[in-house]
């Protein structure tokens, strides 16, 4: 197992290297540079100076080596969008907020999604099942920025129950600046789509397991319904759920420009877009590497989770054939 994990981490390093080469090449091949102005061009001497300052006067391959040699020491450079700070500090500050949003969303989306999925599966073909399926379809198809605007118009503008934006600035919080009234709308808007996905996958997995012979046998043996569900249904339904749902997590903890922008959350989400538009090379690289790293780690954690859910799964074991 340990050897397997080490191997996977090594593979992740290779993936990050490949991602860095691809992203670096792509961003340098897009027309327009970070210091091309909207009205007039910089004089050549000024342009030369600023390119030199950021090392952009070097050949691209040399820039890449310079960047990566610093990146391995967690020095990701200076963001052109915020020249008075560093990429690491900027990401550290903004990602901390995004992670709060993401984790709260995960708790809400997975909590309610799993409950709704179980309930719908258990009461298969009932009106509850139909309702959960309908709401799930709606949640998947309506974009979160539309949901966000609906929520703002209804709960902030019309009813005036909740603040329309901010993150921990409403002054009405459960603990210090956490779990505040201004968390509710963004989390709900952000959670609806993953909650719908979670509910659908949970329902499908449980319905499938509930039809298995061993579940019927368990019931025939006289096990209580609670025990049947807990010991046989839930446990066996977890693997497909983990496979499908694990991939939602990196999406949620790296932020959404729509949610953060609409609800005035000063998180990381917007930098995925603004960095590209502004040709902010250090930020582009750092954000892409962060996403690649999170995906890699999450896949590894998912695989480890398999072994905990199903003892038959042995990571790194040699094939019997």
């Amino acid at each position: 197992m340990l050897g397997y994990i080490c191997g996977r981490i090594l593979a992740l390093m290779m993936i990050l290297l490949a991602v860095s080469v691809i992203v670096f090449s792509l961003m340098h091949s897009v027309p327009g540079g970070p210091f091309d102005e909207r009205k007039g061009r910089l004089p050549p001497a000024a342009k030369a100076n600023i390119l030199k300052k950021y090392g952009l006067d070097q050949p691209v391959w040399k820039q890449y080596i310079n960047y990566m040699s610093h990146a391995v020491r967690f020095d990701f450079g200076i963001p052109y969008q915020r020249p008075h700070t560093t990429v690491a500090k900027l990401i550290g500050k903004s990602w901390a907020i995004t992670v709060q949003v993401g984790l709260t969303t995960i708790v809400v989306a997975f909590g309610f999604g799993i409950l709704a999925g179980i309930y719908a599966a258990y009461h298969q073909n009932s009106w509850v099942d139909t309702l959960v399926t309908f709401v799930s379809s709606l949640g998947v198809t309506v974009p979160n920025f539309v949901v966000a605007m609906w929520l703002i118009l209804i709960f902030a503008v019309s009813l005036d129950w909740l603040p329309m934006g901010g993150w921990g600035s409403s002054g009405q919080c459960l603990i210090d600046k956490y779990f505040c009234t201004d968390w509710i709308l963004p989390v709900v808007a952000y959670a609806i789509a993953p909650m719908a996905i979670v509910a659908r996958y949970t329902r499908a997995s449980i319905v499938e397991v509930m039809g298995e012979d061993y579940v019927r046998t368990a019931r025939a043996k006289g096990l209580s319904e609670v025990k049947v569900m807990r010991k046989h249904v839930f446990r066996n339904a977890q693997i497909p759920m983990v496979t499908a749902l694990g991939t939602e997590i990196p999406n949620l903890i790296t932020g959404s420009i729509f949610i953060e922008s609409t609800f005035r959350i000063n998180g990381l989400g917007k930098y995925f877009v603004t960095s590209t538009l502004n040709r902010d090379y250090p930020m582009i690289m750092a954000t892409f590497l962060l996403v690649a790293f999170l995906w890699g780690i999450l896949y590894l954690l998912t695989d480890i989770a398999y072994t905990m859910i199903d003892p038959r799964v042995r990571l790194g074991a040699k094939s019997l054939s």
Partner: protein
Amino acid sequence: MKLNESKRTSGWRRFLKYSKKIVGGTTLLSALCLTPSAVLAGGHGLPKDAAPADQQVLRVPCDNTRNEVTFDFAVAVYQRYECIADLFQDTLVDLDKDFNVIPASAESWSVDASGKVWTFKLREGLQWSDGTPLTAADYEATFRYSADPSSAWDFTWFYSFIGAGGIKNWSKVIAGEMPTSALGIRAVDDLTLEVETEGVFPPLPGVMKFAFLLSKKALEAHGPYYNNDPDTSVSAGPYVLTEFDPGNRIVVEANPNYKGYRPARLQRIEGIYMSPATFFTAFQQGEVDTVPYERLTPADFKVIESDPVLKNNYLRHFGDFRTDYLLFDTYTAPFNDLNVRKAFAYALDRDAIVKNVYGEIKAMPAHSMLMPGYPASDTKGELKQYQTFDCPKAKKHLADAGYPDGKGFPAQEMWLRGEGPAMSAVYQASAASIAQCLNIKIEVSNKDGKVYMDALNAKPTQLTLGAVSYGMDFLDPANLLGIWVSSGRHSWTNEKFDSMVAEASNLVGDDKKREQMFRDAQKILVDDVGGVFIAHRWQGDLFKPYVQGDSFRVPDSNGISGKHWGNDWYWGNVYISNAK
């Protein structure tokens, strides 16, 4: 729009007069300000209907999608914290509501016999918020910093662009060919600043509206971004930085050490970051007190126009006299043929686009570059005949160019410069109007801003057909017509236009002749179809009814109220009334 030509001309003459002679300006200053002893940190000179001093808080929305790095014009013009920019200093001059140049940090100015050396006398007693006296050396240091190639200032193009009006040796200094000390900006003594230009340029005082400054002491101690930290920030303007969390919230408060011409009535201004899409919603919910026009959608305007309170508090103004237009590569086919360009000019149904796409509250049809109200503009509509909607005439011109009923005309791709939904719709409608009338194909492609500018600025240009807007940098026809000379960014050349603009720009002593030369030059531009002019934008701001102040509530001599471009008195004059 009701414009009074005589008043406008009179205002323009006054502008030139200010440009050429020493102006004391004490009368106007005394009208705008109280004596220094009465200056308080906020609440200065509050009228009777004002809310209590501690409730003088203005909340403004800030765009959380913008790329912003500084408060200071002298550091990066196009990347300023837009919603709360330029409050930490006063410029040398200001503009009143009729766009006349009036004193600000400089109480007077004069020009020597050569017409090239201007002397600005600073007001006595000006100081930074840390108590350091503000002197001409601060201005000198600021200009030297901005011109230094290592600063890579994004506005360096400007002082080269204005030609004769450019600061002496500016182009050589920014090119790294001369030291910054060679710049034609000299601190003669603490209160005297000398500005030497390359040539004779009467509107120079108006250009000094851009003479924003940095603190020499802070610049040397902390570098150009000293204002990005409340601990190192110093201000010579009406407000000081107290809270700085860009992307979230910025707070400035009245500067207790301010000695300038516009002491604050407000105690505090809060900049609240949000998505531009939610500005109006936040306004409706009472989270912010103003919304600028460019963040209001056509749907928002429908709400505004149907609500009497909102409508009365949407204050429309000239803004920066912005014009939206189509541009061509006139050096290559098919737009090297004047008939083709004329066909485009006559095929554009401006009235319908303004009425149905912009909305009449936001724009007026354009038949030329200079918006009526701007100096030397076509207020009588004499140029309308050259660029107006006349489809049969358009078809005839296209046929004369060899494309009867559009047959054989190459399909065109019209580029946009990363436009948002509202302006994309305008340009889409423009392309559709032309394509429908001429029976040709025009595909609209909304490009990334940097890709667009790269193509536009390339020599030869890589942009065959595009759409763009331009607003003034300073109030003189030399500015908005100057961008059309052959050395500018447009791929259109007319020698007569070039020489006329160049001659008029430097003409001294005959205002009437100068203005007529600009009028004639604009006629050439319109007739030779350097561009196809779509609309002049009415700009404006939506205010809560309790946001008051003569600077924007009382109309100018043309009956136009609202925040006037270049009239920085607003920030000292605005207050919260007890109607809140």
